[in-house]
């Protein structure tokens, strides 16, 4: 049972006055859903959950939280796979699902403005039905996950190879500061009808991206859309040698012709396929690596030219890896099962990933240096196997090859005794090993933050803390993270 503050009944009554009785709860059965997530992170103990519907209600909630100095944790789906919405200091979960309006799409400047409760399923449906000339991009996540949260947490999606992590797609935001003031960041600060960018003005977006909800609650966000080209190519490859395969990935990325390229271990495909837990392993003789290439073109000629470049790069790979194969994704799906194609049908509920109750994925952004990446993968695989888990690797070149996303999809069963503890031991050892190589974990869980704070530049830490203190003097916004208890 969560510990109640002294003024619990009073606070509840005042919260109900803000949003209505139906949208506040302190029932243990309901709070339980917000106390944990799919990861190995220890559970928290929220005291209330509240569901506002407007920015004014969010403001009032924040003002109330300051009055009582009670923490607030913004929440939509809680699927961040990092324990970020598990309250570390109790308090109020601000569930933003009701704020699910899509405000508008600007067709000329190519952006969409939406509220934090809008999910990838919503945006996909809208674009497919009403704005087929545009694409957004999608993470390896179910359709019910939040577009805003993904962008604010520097997520990696299906256009990140070309354009970078998802915060790069943000044109502007409206946010309620920890003091209750509403602020706009970007050109929208000057004109409500213009949300086309953040330049050339002092860019304050960095006060909200990567901060895990510690600096305010974003109530609107403008995100870039991209033109949808008429011709699309989706390819699938299997390979065996890590270094030549990775070099091919890098080479094709540098051609600047791709929308996406995923490079994965075979175990990842097996997991996507639905192979049972602990059976997604690499068997003797099988291909070791696999990949998915996505590109688009404005004309048949452009399509053909891009395909020729990719095939030529692949032909070079086959000089070092004669068994490597390349085909259309469609052919691979026909030969190996349509589940192979699920990777291209995002957002999607990948059943093999989420069905055992537990999922952690130590994801980090990393250098692209071949030697470092290869060594990092080998070391990581040794550690994962040592702890008895599956080596499901999922990687992506980011922003044209400026950095690399290296991610290990670690599914586990929370029902098996001792497994949560084993997963904690694994993720800690994995993180420490990769951090030594220069890998920074995105959606950094608290336990990793504590380790990083021992190693990071002291002036950076000091600046971080002073900004947080300045914005949030009562430390109500998702407290307990980045050494800011």
């Amino acid at each position, binding site marked *: 049972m969560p510990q109640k503050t002294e003024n619990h009944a009073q606070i509840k009554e005042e919260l109900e006055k803000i949003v209505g009785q139906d949208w506040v709860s302190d029932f243990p059965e309901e709070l339980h859903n917000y106390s944990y997530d799919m990861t190995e992170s220890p559970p928290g103990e929220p005291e209330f959950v509240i569901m506002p519907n407007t920015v004014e209600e969010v403001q009032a909630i924040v003002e109330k939280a300051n009055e009582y100095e009670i923490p607030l944790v913004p929440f939509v789906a809680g699927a961040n796979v990092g324990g970020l919405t598990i309250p570390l200091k109790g308090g109020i979960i601000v569930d933003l699902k009701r704020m699910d309006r899509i405000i508008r799409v600007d067709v000329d400047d190519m952006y969409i403005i939406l509220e934090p409760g809008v999910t990838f399923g919503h945006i996909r449906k809208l674009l497919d039905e009403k704005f087929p000339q545009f694409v957004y991009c999608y993470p390896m996540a179910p359709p019910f996950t939040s577009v805003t949260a993904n962008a604010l947490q520097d997520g990696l999606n299906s256009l990140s190879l070309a354009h970078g992590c998802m915060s790069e797609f943000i044109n502007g935001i409206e946010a309620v500061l920890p003091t209750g003031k509403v602020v706009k960041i970007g050109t929208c600060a000057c004109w409500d009808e213009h949300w086309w960018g953040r330049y050339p003005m002092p860019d304050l977006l960095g006060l909200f991206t990567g901060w895990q909800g510690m600096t305010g609650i974003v109530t609107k966000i403008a995100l870039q859309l991209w033109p949808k080209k008429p011709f699309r190519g989706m390819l699938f490859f299997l390979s065996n040698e890590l270094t030549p395969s990775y070099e091919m990935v890098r080479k094709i990325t540098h051609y600047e012709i791709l929308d996406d390229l995923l490079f994965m271990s075979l175990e990842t495909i*097996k997991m996507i396929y639905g192979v049972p837990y602990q059976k997604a392993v690499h068997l003797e003789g099988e291909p070791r690596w696999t990949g998915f290439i996505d590109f688009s073109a404005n004309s048949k000629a452009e399509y053909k030219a891009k395909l020729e470049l990719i095939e030529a790069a692949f032909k070079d790979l086959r000089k070092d890896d004669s068994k490597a194969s390349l085909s259309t994704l469609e052919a691979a799906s026909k*030969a190996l099962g349509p589940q192979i194609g699920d990777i291209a049908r995002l957002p999607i509920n990948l059943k093999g990933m989420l069905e055992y109750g537990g999922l952690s994925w130590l994801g980090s952004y990393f250098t692209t240096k071949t030697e470092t990446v290869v060594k990092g993968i080998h070391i990581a695989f040794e550690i994962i196997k040592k702890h008895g888990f599956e080596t499901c690797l999922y990687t992506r070149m980011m922003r044209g090859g400026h950095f690399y996303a290296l991610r290990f999809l670690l599914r586990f069963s929370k029902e098996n005794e001792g497994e949560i503890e084993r997963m904690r031991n694994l993720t800690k050892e994995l993180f420490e090993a990769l951090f030594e190589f220069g890998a920074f974990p995105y959606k950094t869980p608290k336990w990793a933050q504590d380790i990083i704070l021992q190693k990071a530049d002291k002036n950076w830490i000091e600046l971080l803390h002073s900004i947080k203190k300045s914005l949030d003097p009562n430390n109500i916004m998702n407290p307990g993270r980045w050494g800011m208890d």
Partner: protein
Amino acid sequence: MEEFKGPTDIFGMGLYYVISKNIKDFSKYRDFINNLNLNLVLELNYYPLMIKFQKESFEVTREIEKPDVIMKFDVQDLLNIVEGKTGIMRLILKRRIRIKKGFTKLLKVYKVFSQLVS
């Protein structure tokens, strides 16, 4: 969660799924497979696989015993067939697919695969 059936190696998994799906969706194919008694070995350039067709059931396994037909080929060629870039017969004639055993049963094998790649 729906129970996972079949082998867990990548090619066995794929073949099992694809054959099962075609049996489920196409009655003529189902009738053909249900009357088939054949041990077919595919010697892929990665590892060999056996598909045991045993009237009314089939199994895909990496354990090879008593093959009736042995076909040796490259996974890239298999994908090229599915993609429509080439055909089984053309690859046999070019010796890209080698029939090491069971040439007389080739027509049955052709029927198994032509449905899968159609």
